[in-house]
């Protein structure tokens, strides 16, 4: 048989990618469910037993009550704060999922290979949706590059993530309109799509999957539904820190503390999309309008650094964190994460680690 790049990528590589995706998806979902446990229905969002019963009827009643006070709720909600961003984000993500399953071309290939297909949406509509995604991706890219709020915590990977998301749409659009060499373009399209599928599980693009854990499955006061699960700790804190001498830090103890909630924290640090939308929910950011007050940035500048260094930090590094995690955060736990990351949990762990090394904020100087 003649060696053919198109056939190779369309056939075995695509099958391999999908199998790899499925296996990893099962792994990620399993990892999440192993790292969490089921709460009883009587446990409140704070993890304490509720004195009041909260059954299905109460659920309905509370929804009705919320509807009755819809205006107040709307005015107090994060939606009223940035309706444009939220609508854009929701539509953007929805189209990405729709495009994977309901594009005519995808379904034809699916039917040819495995003999089944999903319903397709008209090609003209898909064309418009693709243009929408490309335009919004460009907008996100520009925002990343030029908005002070977005630029502050930015690293190269953040641009790459947007480009990786837009690439299948750009190539798909080009392929549909038969621009350039169709064969080359369609191969690019398939490769970029496969890369995105893989990236969906290994990079921060995984927030598309983590979203359903974070906002739906976990119980939290800001979550979409009254979830039923809570994070486990990997290892309970069993020993107290030894007093440290002079400028030393006890790296072993820092590691020990980092390992406490490793699965949870690593997952949360990995899936943070760095969208900076949590900024608007931080009253300190709203008052100061300074990017260093963005909750996710505070978590990355403290706990993120500790995990990246695997606990091998100098005392000076810890002292530099004091300003971020004490002066710029009061741990009011009101930060609202669109993906459902528990930012205060990260900051409080960073604080505990600093405290264990005798680095903390004093209020009398």
């Amino acid at each position, binding site marked *: 048989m003649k060696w053919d790049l198109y056939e190779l990528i369309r056939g075995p590589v695509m099958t391999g990618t999908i199998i790899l995706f499925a296996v990893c998806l099962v792994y990620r979902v399993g990892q999440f469910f192993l790292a969490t446990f089921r709460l009883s229905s009587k446990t409140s969002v*704070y*993890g*304490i037993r*509720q004195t*009041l*019963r*909260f059954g299905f009827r*109460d659920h309905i*009643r*509370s929804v009705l*009550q919320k509807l009755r*006070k819809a205006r*107040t*709720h709307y005015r107090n909600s994060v939606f009223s704060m940035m309706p444009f961003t939220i609508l854009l984000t929701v539509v953007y993500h929805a189209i990405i999922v729709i495009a994977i399953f309901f594009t005519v071309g995808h379904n034809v290939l699916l039917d040819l290979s495995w003999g089944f297909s999903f319903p397709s949406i008209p090609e003209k509509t898909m064309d418009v949706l693709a243009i929408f995604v490309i335009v919004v991706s460009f907008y996100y890219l520009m925002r990343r590059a030029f908005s002070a709020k977005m630029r502050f915590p930015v690293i190269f990977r953040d641009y790459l993530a947007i480009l990786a998301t837009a690439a299948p749409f750009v190539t798909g659009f080009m392929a549909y309109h038969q621009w350039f060499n169709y064969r080359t373009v369609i191969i690019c399209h398939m490769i970029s799509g496969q890369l995105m599928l893989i990236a969906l599980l290994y990079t921060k693009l995984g927030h598309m999957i983590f979203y359903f854990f974070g906002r739906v499955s976990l119980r939290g006061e800001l979550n979409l539904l009254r979830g039923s699960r809570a994070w486990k700790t990997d290892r*309970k*804190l*069993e*020993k*107290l820190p030894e007093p440290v001498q002079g400028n030393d830090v006890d790296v072993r103890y820092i590691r020990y503390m980092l390992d406490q909630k490793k699965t949870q924290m690593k997952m949360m640090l990995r899936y943070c999309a760095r969208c900076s939308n949590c900024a608007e929910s931080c009253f300190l950011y709203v008052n100061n309008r300074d990017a260093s007050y963005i909750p996710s940035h505070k978590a990355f500048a403290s706990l993120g650094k500790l995990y990246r260094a695997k606990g091998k930090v100098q005392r000076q590094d810890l002292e530099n964190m004091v300003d971020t995690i004490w002066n710029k955060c009061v*741990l009011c736990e009101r930060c609202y994460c669109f993906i459902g990351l528990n930012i205060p949990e990260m900051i*409080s762990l960073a*604080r*505990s680690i600093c*405290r264990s090394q005798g680095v*903390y904020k*004093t*209020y*009398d100087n």
Partner: protein
Amino acid sequence: MVKAKKKPISELKRLIEPYNKVLNIGCGGCVSVCLAGGQKEVNVLNAELALEVGRSIKIEGYTVERQCRPRFVDEIEEIVKQFDCLLSMACGAGAQLLAETYPNIPVFPAVNTIAIGIDRDIGIYEEKCRACGDCIIGYTGGICPITRCAKGLFNGPCGGVHNGICEVSHTVACAWVQVYERLSVQNRLDCIHRIREPNGWQNQVQRLVVQDDYVHN
């Protein structure tokens, strides 16, 4: 915020007398800010206690971010098991949550919770509110007679006032004279012309705060 003051060391010594392994738990919240029970105060108190007790006992310290939040108190579950008794440097609320979370182990307060107050200077705090649950300062010119008046009068002043000074002590100003003066500046004296009914202090039970938007039942 909540203001507290460290208990006398002799009292603490008496409390922990029968125990050999003591864990002193600080709080990173209000008591940290009022310099009564933060991590620094935990270290200081531990050193003082070790000297005071005289015999060799194990006194360790740990500071949680907030003792009034279950999830922070839960963190030290395994550590607590290694000790005979706990000292809590948090306010009464924090100490009680600690005692509730670890019912098998005695919890002793290391601070006296004094007041809800304001900061006059570093280390100097003034009581402003007694959390009576029925705020009337709207009618008294922003001065709380329950906190400020020695008798907690709702309709004052009483006969014990002399040149604006309370009979209790010559350093205590009469709250009601101040109320009168402030309201007269604002031309709102009609606010205190009407007799206010006494508050129903009797039958006070533990209060549960449920915000209207969050009522479940």
